[in-house]
């Protein structure tokens, strides 16, 4: 290995380094980009505020995972606390703790980008070589339907009985052991996360990675980034140690994702265009159910089948897609709002519990501007995400759809995560959902996919970067991550981020 990786405790004295390209963030965007740049012989320095974890750390202990590997120690929410936001914070970004589901970008979404947002060069044919490249590197392949776990079987069986579309999904794994612990870091090293693949490739070819270093700001002079200023963090406490890292690059790249990426630009005074606006999160609702048979939803590959039956509900309705997550105790408890002994009754259902998710496709509805990332006065990042009436309507529809899936799959009891829960005992009871309210703080809402906030596009008034992902106003600044999407995708975003970053390699290298 020619490169080097430091963690916070390695850096006890201030560091100042010059390089060709400084990349802030090591997730799906930054890692793929970095590997392509060092292949071209460029000197790349990467800053990552999260820690560096490997298989040895992935022991499946939720008590450690959320505080160590998720943003805000697992406590990130929207400003109104209505939506729980799950987002990774590691070397490898979200890919270290995601559930491995991979899709190419739907043509409907790409068509919307071209037609509504004027984006050229992102049609399926143009992206195909980039998808092929990352699929080969990351072992992305369809999961055999005969290996789906019982929780996914519920979705498969329910949709099939209802005559709804349902298909096996593709995953970026090699040698998966069906542990079910993808969300806590793969314990067998099967997941082809960034720290095992593209970052490893880039380290082999000479990249420098500084983990546990937060990028505080870009320093801009004369319309160019002249330095990236970072602070070394103490991993356990998150506090700055006082040691500073200054990187002076020819080209700077923000790859720290939606939410943190726009916040970094705002902290740097780079406020041109709609930075922070049109942030999309695939708002998720969950519907759990109780089965006579054992489900053990914590075991087996998560999200190995999915349904896009309701993806396209027409331009005036918000669509959604359905997947089956892994369920572990902390995640299950966060979905519940009961207290006292009813908590125990709910949690004791776990082995017989199935939960299904509906992920809502925000940003395609013509009136949907999504959320807004801004900075609080004390420097904290803030995400406001209103649930508008058309999204609330979709929540109602998706609750009903998931309840029907459960009953079709043989559930004896289906619950909604309202306060109080809707307790349905037969498919006739699904009608009870019509009388419930939908929206913020009416029921549980989650997000595991964050997109937008630095949208690409041809017009500086309505976008932050151009379609080469180069900033409209700061000449040597690129944004390479999911924040450049002008809408949400309608599929799990990691593979699109990989491909977009793969495509951006040429433009970033050419900027030097």
């Amino acid at each position, binding site marked *: 290995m020619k490169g080097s*990786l430091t963690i916070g405790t*390695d850096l006890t004295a201030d560091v100042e380094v010059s390089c060709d390209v400084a990349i802030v963030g090591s997730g799906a965007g930054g890692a793929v980009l970095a590997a392509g740049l060092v*292949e*071209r*012989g460029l000197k790349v320095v990467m800053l990552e505020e999260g*820690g*560096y*974890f490997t298989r*040895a*750390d*992935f*022991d499946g*202990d*939720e*008590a450690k995972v959320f*505080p*160590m590997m998720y943003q805000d*120690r697992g*406590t990130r929410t929207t400003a109104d606390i209505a939506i*729980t936001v799950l987002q990774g914070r590691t070397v490898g970004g979200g890919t270290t703790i995601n559930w491995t589901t991979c899709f190419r970008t739907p043509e409907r979404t790409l068509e919307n980008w071209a037609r509504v947002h004027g984006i050229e060069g992102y049609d399926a044919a143009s992206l195909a*070589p980039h998808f092929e*490249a990352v699929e080969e*590197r*990351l*072992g992305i392949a369809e999961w055999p339907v005969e290996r789906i776990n019982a929780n996914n079987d519920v979705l498969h069986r329910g949709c099939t009985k209802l005559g709804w579309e349902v298909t096996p999904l593709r995953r970026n794994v*090699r*040698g998966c052991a069906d542990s079910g612990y993808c969300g*806590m870091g793969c*314990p*067998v*090293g*099967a997941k*082809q996360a960034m*720290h*095992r693949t593209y970052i*490893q*490739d880039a380290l*082999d070819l000479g990249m420098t990675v500084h983990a546990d270093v937060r990028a505080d700001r870009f320093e801009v002079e004369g319309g160019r980034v002249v330095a990236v200023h970072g602070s070394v963090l103490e991993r356990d*406490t998150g506090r700055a140690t006082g040691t500073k890292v200054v990187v002076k690059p020819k080209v700077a790249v923000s790859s720290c994702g939606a939410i943190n990426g726009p916040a970094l630009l705002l902290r740097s005074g780079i406020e041109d265009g709609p930075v922070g606006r049109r942030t999309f999160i695939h708002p998720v609702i969950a519907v759990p159910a109780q089965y006579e048979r054992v489900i053990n939803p914590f075991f087996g590959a998560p999200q190995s089948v999915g349904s896009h039956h309701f993806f396209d509900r027409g331009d005036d309705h918000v669509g959604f897609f359905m997947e089956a997550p892994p369920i572990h*105790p*902390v995640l299950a*408890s*966060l979905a*519940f*709002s009961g*207290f*006292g002994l009813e908590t*125990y009754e709910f949690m*004791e259902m*776990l*082995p017989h519990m199935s939960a299904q998710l509906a992920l809502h496709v925000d940003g395609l509805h013509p009136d949907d501007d999504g959320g807004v990332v801004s900075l609080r006065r*004390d420097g*904290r990042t803030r995400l406001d995400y209103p649930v508008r009436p058309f999204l609330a309507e979709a929540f109602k529809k998706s609750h009903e759809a998931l309840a029907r899936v459960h009953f079709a799959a043989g559930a004896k009891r289906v619950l909604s995560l309202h*306060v109080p829960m809707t307790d349905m005992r037969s498919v006739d009871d699904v009608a009870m959902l019509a009388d419930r309210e939908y929206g913020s703080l009416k029921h549980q809402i989650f997000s595991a996919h964050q997109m937008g906030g630095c949208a690409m596009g041809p017009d500086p008034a309505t976008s932050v970067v151009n379609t080469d992902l180069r900033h409209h106003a700061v000449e040597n600044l690129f944004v390479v991550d999911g924040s450049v999407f002008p809408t949400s995708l309608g599929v799990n975003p990691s593979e699109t981020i990989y491909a977009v970053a*793969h495509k951006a*390699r*040429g*433009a970033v*290298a*050419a900027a030097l």
Partner: protein
Amino acid sequence: MTEPTTPGGAPKPTRRRLFQFVAAGGLAAALGGVGVGLQGTAMREPAGPLRCLSPRAFSILAALADRICPQGDGFPAASELKVAEGVDDLMSRVHPGDVADLETALLFFENALSGLLFDGRPTPFSACDAATQDAAIDAFRSSAVGARRQVFKATYGLIAGAYWANSTLHTKIGYSGQPDYGNRRGTPGVSRPPIERRSLEPLGPLDPVPEEPVAELPEGSEPTPAVEEASP
């Protein structure tokens, strides 16, 4: 100038007198409210030094945790598992502004004046009996006032997460936990792990360079494929 009176000699209602009445009434109510609001928190002793929460906020949190996760049905109370201490530890690692927000939420839960106004509860939450505390929690959880539901959600998530993260509970709920793949030695933040270079299958080759404008490769810097070390 004498005050106008009614035929019975009582002061005649005037706008000025009405304002005085409202002001006096408001002051009295406020003073009474302050009295209610200043009633003491039932303090609890943490198992060790607090890392970020004030003793009062900790006490409210611990009282709340013991009703969200009470002893019963074979499960231990939150205090037995030191849930409030766990939340204090977690919050010590986030932005101080988040800690301040949590303390505000806890004081809102505790405040007897808001309890009186919203729920007819004239006693601080921490000093109430269990049934009254349960009623208060339910009132917050299902309140028509969004801010009260926010307070419930913010505190509930921290407490439930800290409680159910405790692995001693897992067998009882039928959760087997992660199989032992020989990697239960992780101590994040304590020691630097070696750079991982193992996989169960050989990794694929480097992806091809796309057909797009690229920088010239300096001489002698041809890309080399990653080399995987054999698994031990």
